């Protein structure tokens, strides 16, 4: 009976374990898979032969790279899970030159994995079969990935999942940013002056953030339309939407979109860190 179950492993590199926590909520896999390696929940210290390897977290240390290279050899299929594995994620904020200098003071530590100068997405080092973006991907997305559910039809954008109404006569003249007071229920966050980029962010998450009244920060990356293009195409499209729906000065939108925190998400499939890479093929991205 056990032998008919597919075997899968979860390798966590430098990250926050949020992807693993989400996976634990997607427990439908218990019926179809045998989890053989995931240090967060299983005591096993090396990755055995598996059908499926999920990798979360970015490559920040030499130990990350060693574990990654060793693990992919044992797997039939390798899936990059979450923003850190796909783009470097939040750790990418540490790749800024002015910040990198601060890390140098810590070079004196002994017997520890050595930090690389920057954080790296995993496909800089190994070949990836599929990508599951999100920070973290929701349990429903994990389930769709693991069970290959043909019924699962993700929305194209977060906007389509959100359910808030766009209204013509509500045109804000000022940007509220992210964190400002009470949010009106049921009405589009852009109409209320929030910097929401759900209009062009990849759907499939069910829009939990915008439904709860927080603007989408684009953690799933661009929708299929923008994946093969560079970051500027996406940026331009977001700016065009704000020009159409609001009276906020375009230079304010531009400055906010380029702020470090948003850049972290917005450019995850593009050339944010200046590395020349071909775009990831849309058919490999869930």
């Amino acid at each position, binding site marked *: 009976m056990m032998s008919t179950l597919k075997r899968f492993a979860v390798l966590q590199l430098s990250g926050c374990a949020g992807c693993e926590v989400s996976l634990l909520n997607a*427990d439908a896999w218990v019926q179809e898979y045998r989890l053989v390696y995931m240090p967060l*929940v299983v*005591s096993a210290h090396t990755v055995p032969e598996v059908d499926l390897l999920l990798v979360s977290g970015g490559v920040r240390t030499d130990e990350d790279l060693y574990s990654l290279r060793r693990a992919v050899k044992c797997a039939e299929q390798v899936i990059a899970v979450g923003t850190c594995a796909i783009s470097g994620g939040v750790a990418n904020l540490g790749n800024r030159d002015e910040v990198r200098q601060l890390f140098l003071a810590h070079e004196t530590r002994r017997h520890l994995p050595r930090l690389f100068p920057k954080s790296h997405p995993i496909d800089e080092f190994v070949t990836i079969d599929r990508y599951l973006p999100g920070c973290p991907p929701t349990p429903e997305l994990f389930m769709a990935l693991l069970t290959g559910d043909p019924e699962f039809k993700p929305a194209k954008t977060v906007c389509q999942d959100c359910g808030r109404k766009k209204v013509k006569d509500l045109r804000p003249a000022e940007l509220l940013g992210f964190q400002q007071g009470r*949010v009106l229920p049921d009405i589009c966050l852009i109409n209320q002056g929030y910097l929401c980029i759900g209009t062009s962010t990849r759907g499939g998450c069910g829009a939990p953030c915008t439904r*709860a009244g927080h603007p989408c920060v684009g953690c799933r990356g661009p929708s299929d339309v923008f994946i093969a293009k560079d970051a500027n195409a996406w940026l331009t499209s977001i700016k065009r939407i704000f020009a159409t729906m609001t009276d906020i000065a375009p230079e304010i939108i531009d400055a906010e979109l380029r*702020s470090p925190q948003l850049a972290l998400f917005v450019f995850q499939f593009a050339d944010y860190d200046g590395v020349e890479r071909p775009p990831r093929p849309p058919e490999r991205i869930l």
Partner: protein
Amino acid sequence: MTTLTFPLSRIEGHARVEIEVQDGEVLSAHFQATEWRGFQYLVQGAPAEQMPVIVPRICGVCSTAHHVASVKALEDAYGIEPPPLARTIRELLLLGQLIQNQATSLFIFTMPDRLGVDSLFEVDEADADAAEAHVEMRALQIRQAGTHLIRLAGGQFIHPVKATVGGVTGGIPAQEAEKMRESLAQVLPSARELFDYYWEKSLALGERLGTWGDDAPACYIASVGSECPNFCGEQLHVLNAEGSYCTSFATQNFRDYLIHQESETSYAGQTSFQGEVLRANSLARINLVERLGTPVADAYLARFREAFGNPAHAILLFDLARGIELVYALERAQEILAQPLDGEEVAVSYTRRDGEGYGLVEAPRGPLIHHYRIEDGRIAEAEFIIPTVHNILAIERALRVAARRYITAERVDMELERAVGRVVRAFDPCIACATH
């Protein structure tokens, strides 16, 4: 000299234990955190108001605590107070986190140690009672009660978004609150049964080992209310090792009491209470509160104190204390959900200003402090005071005790590897947070 290295699993993050031995004598035991992303640096320059979105990414297990601590630090900097309803919803958020975390630690991290297996997913195969009780399935369900509560109160359950500077983005409609209350009411009996099972297996383990992890008493640190728990308070308390005297101080004065040191052999630092070994987490809270304030949890607390004393010190009691808190959180959340939570007054408006702010929450692992200095609306300096770091000296001392028990001049008892795992997991360290 011989160095024994133990990789660790069933904890949050990457760490290992190194024990140095010479001629059967244990020279040292180091708990080494082996990952580091440098959040105190990488947030520099970020617009201050974006911190509540960035900092949950320190840790996917403790994200709720970071989210709320961040919002509180900014409110302190801007000089504003959130309305009562916002505080209540934040308490719900932190209770959801407590349910999720204590269930994870009890059932996923440490239950396998009680049964001698490698993971929760083998528990049902290893123990006939467990199979009959559907331990695996129910453990996951109890844990999910916590994540569903976080999702209701926080929007997203891993990196929540609903707490904002000045309050929360919205209330909770009565119908949804009632649905959640009913589902928690259903989970409570299941959690009690599983905890009773866990308690029984822990007694058996203690008997087999001949110890509950004895170590010298230590000081205990927590942020609690005057009698009962309070996860969103403003004061820290340290109980001395004898349990006779409590030192209290306000968040921003923590440097006068807590001495922090970086470590050469770990990416996590360590904290002492003016040079004394400190313990945070479940046992610290249980030792510091007078009562929990909910009936079933208080009955467990009475049973616990009768069996183990007050303050209680043995290492494996951290795990039992976690179970009592799981029951407490399930009860307390139901009380809150029975109140009206859909009022209009969810946030106050504010004006941004530069300056400094401190935000304190009692996270499942102990008191968590965020400290920001804001210049031109951007983060000029950020400090994260992490509960796991308060426990590092206590973990290492307990590891030395365990090592001496199992290492002699003739041999190293193979039980040592399991003992290392049990000691570390009792403290439920979070390495992603500790290193941040």
